């Protein structure tokens, strides 16, 4: 299944770059939180967190150099979580709506 017989060893620089990026994003997320963006505060915060998680998964967790099936497994967890969230929210978000009117 795997593309590599020998595991890929990333250069030290990659790790340090990833680390730096994570630090910058941490500062960014605190800084953005100081502005009132209305509902977009959550959106921005979660987006930044997702980017951080993504690079941790790609580089620290070596998914970038791994077989497809590992990719798929990692993605499945997150996709399933999002679907669980989306469908549950679908209930809470539409509770206040009125029933479709008459002809139905």
């Amino acid at each position, binding site marked *: 299944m795997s593309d590599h017989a020998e595991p890929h*060893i990333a250069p030290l620089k990659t790790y*340090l770059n990833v680390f730096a990026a994570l630090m910058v994003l941490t500062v960014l997320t*605190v800084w953005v939180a100081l502005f009132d963006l209305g509902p977009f505060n959550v959106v921005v915060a979660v987006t930044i967190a997702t980017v951080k998680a993504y690079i941790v998964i790609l580089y620290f967790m070596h998914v970038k150099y791994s077989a497809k099936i590992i990719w798929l497994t990692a993605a499945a967890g997150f996709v399933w979580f999002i679907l669980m969230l989306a469908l549950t929210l679908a209930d809470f978000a539409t509770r206040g709506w009125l029933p479709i009117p008459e002809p139905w």
Partner: protein
Amino acid sequence: MADGQSHLAHHFDSMEQQRESSSLGMWLFLAQEVMFFGGLFVAYAIYRFKYPEAFAVASGYLSVGWGAFNTVVLICSSLTMALAVRAAQLGDKKKIIQYIVATMLLACVFLGVKGVEYTEKYHHDLVPGPAFQYVPDFDAYTVPVTAETAHPNFAGHVQLFYSFYFVMTGMHALHMVIGLGLMIWLIVKALRGRFSREYYAPVEMTGLYWHFVDIVWIFLFPLLYLVWRH
């Protein structure tokens, strides 16, 4: 299944098959973990959606300073862990131990800070349960009066936030403690010279686990500490 020379278990045909199996197994375990925490995140999201103001107010009592500090600590520990795995790949036994010890120290710092935060919450009666008491601190924090804040159950909603704060960070801390246990086991194995360029799967698996724990915190930090800071 002697741990000594041959690390190939009897039912596998090759080291490669064995390594790929353990890495797929670990990733499935992590997918399982995503859903485990996922349940908590969904519940949190629903309540935050229902009671945005109470959650904002409640989050205001958390210390962003400590939260950000811990985020940095945990990212550092992720880096040292990644370097430990790299050392293992290169077969550098001494460095494996050094980096793992560094990771463990950082983890202890993180847990120490959490301890400080928990005691602080305890002294402010913000631990959910019968003793929970929410007294609006209007000087430190201005709470606009809205339909939500005027709701007789406002304090209850604040308590809900803290229920989730404690369950989520507690579950996360529990995972860190388990990670510490794994790292002790790694050090013992490393000292006995069990790892080599061919066989370092335990280091790699623990690394994956540790990065996962880091990722959970990457989401917890903004969701719990940064709800409303303007």
